[in-house]
């Protein structure tokens, strides 16, 4: 049998993960509800004043998105590891890089895209004006893949450990800081009347860098964890 090309493997992986997620819709919806609920807690905790809510909205949405991504990180490798699928995948002749990238893309489509689509709505709830919700959406579109790719390193390192979920968040949260700053900063820039372009460009640069290097580091981590 002719071995699959890397592109075909990538497509196959994304298809497989997508199908699995579709059959377990409650997991995906759970992440989305978690995101919406965390964001809704903020007006209840800091008070309903419009100007205050407007100024904290980008930060709140971004932090909630980071927390929600933690939930999906735990699913990234853990289930395939538990039933042995992951080991079989690593035994195939395909580079682990491609497997990590495929899983990250699938996870992004499944768990981050609903979140990105929901974000402008939450922005409106927080009283954001015309442009800001869309800038928020753009920053999440550029930023959530970075978050998932960096997170895949943490998830791979803690695979099969006790308390892996908490540990993963401890490891990757400090690494999320630049993404958080540029992401929330872009919508914040619109609020104070300046251009979000610089923030979005920096976010794009980070996306390119992490897309190249993070799967490679996560592949090394997977190899270490499954030795």
């Amino acid at each position, binding site marked *: 049998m002719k071995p699959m090309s890397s592109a075909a493997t990538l497509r196959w992986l994304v298809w497989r993960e997508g199908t699995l997620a579709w059959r377990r819709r409650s997991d995906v919806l759970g992440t989305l509800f978690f995101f919406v609920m965390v964001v809704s807690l903020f007006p209840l905790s800091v008070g309903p004043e419009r100007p205050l809510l407007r100024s904290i909205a980008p930060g709140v949405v971004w932090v909630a998105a980071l927390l929600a991504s933690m939930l999906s990180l735990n699913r990234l490798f853990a289930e395939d590891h538990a039933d042995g699928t992951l080991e079989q995948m690593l035994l195939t002749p395909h580079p682990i890089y491609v497997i990590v990238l495929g899983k990250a893309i699938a996870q992004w489509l499944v768990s981050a895209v609903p979140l990105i689509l929901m974000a402008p709505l939450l922005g409106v709830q927080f009283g954001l004006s015309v442009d800001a919700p869309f800038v928020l959406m753009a920053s999440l579109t550029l930023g959530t893949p970075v978050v998932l790719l960096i997170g895949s390193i943490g998830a791979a390192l803690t695979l099969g450990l006790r308390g892996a979920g908490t*540990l993963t968040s401890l490891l990757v*949260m400090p690494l999320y*800081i*630049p993404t958080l700053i540029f992401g929330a900063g872009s919508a914040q820039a619109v609020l104070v009347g300046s251009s979000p372009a610089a923030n979005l460009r920096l976010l794009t640069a980070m996306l390119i860098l992490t897309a190249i*290097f993070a799967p490679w580091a996560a592949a090394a981590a997977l190899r270490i964890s499954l030795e």
Partner: protein
Amino acid sequence: MTSQTIHWYRYASPGNLYQLAGQLIPWFAVPASALFVVGLYLGLFVAPTDFQQGDAYRVLFVHVPAAWMGMVLYVVLAFYAAVGWVFNARGSSMMASSLAITGAMFTFLALVTGALWGRPTWGTWWIWDARTTSTLILLFLYLGFISLQSAIDDPRRADRAGAVLALVGVVNVPIIYFSVQWWNTLHQGATIRIAGETSMAGSMLVPLLIMIAACWLYSVAVVLARLRCLIRERESLMTRSVVIE
């Protein structure tokens, strides 16, 4: 090869490394204690009171070396972790694990002394200033490294996983630092700062340099001592036959 050449590979063996560390510790520990005594005496009693900041400035004799060591040790840690991973050298990886706690301790010390200094000088314990914030994040990176290694029972996996994390961290440190500075200028204007780089009087500079040297020597001595403990622990776990000393 002359007979003068040091055979570094010899010390890749934990048994030899254990002995080398044992021989080196006094050469660092004794000067470190002496310099601490001299430096603290000069800094706390001899150096004149600063005319702007009063006696509060004296905390810098601990703060500056601590902040410096916190940053340097992370890079050293990443270096040893990488060497240990690439060349499969257990000794190097154990060096990395030994460095982590000392580095975290110095970073924490820098934050605490910074707060103690900030209270009388800036009027607040904490400021979200770029340097303070990145030091805090550095502490998080140390804690991540330590908690990852302590969560893994297999020492080989712990070493390698730690190496990946340390390398990812060390690549990210400049990006984090830059982004925090960016964030700081975006959110708040210039924080209260002592204007400009004032040149330091010799009577203050000398104790500072002595304290920096003392902290370096102390770090080496403590890390080597912890390395010896780690070698004892691990080698007795892995092979009981390794004869140490």
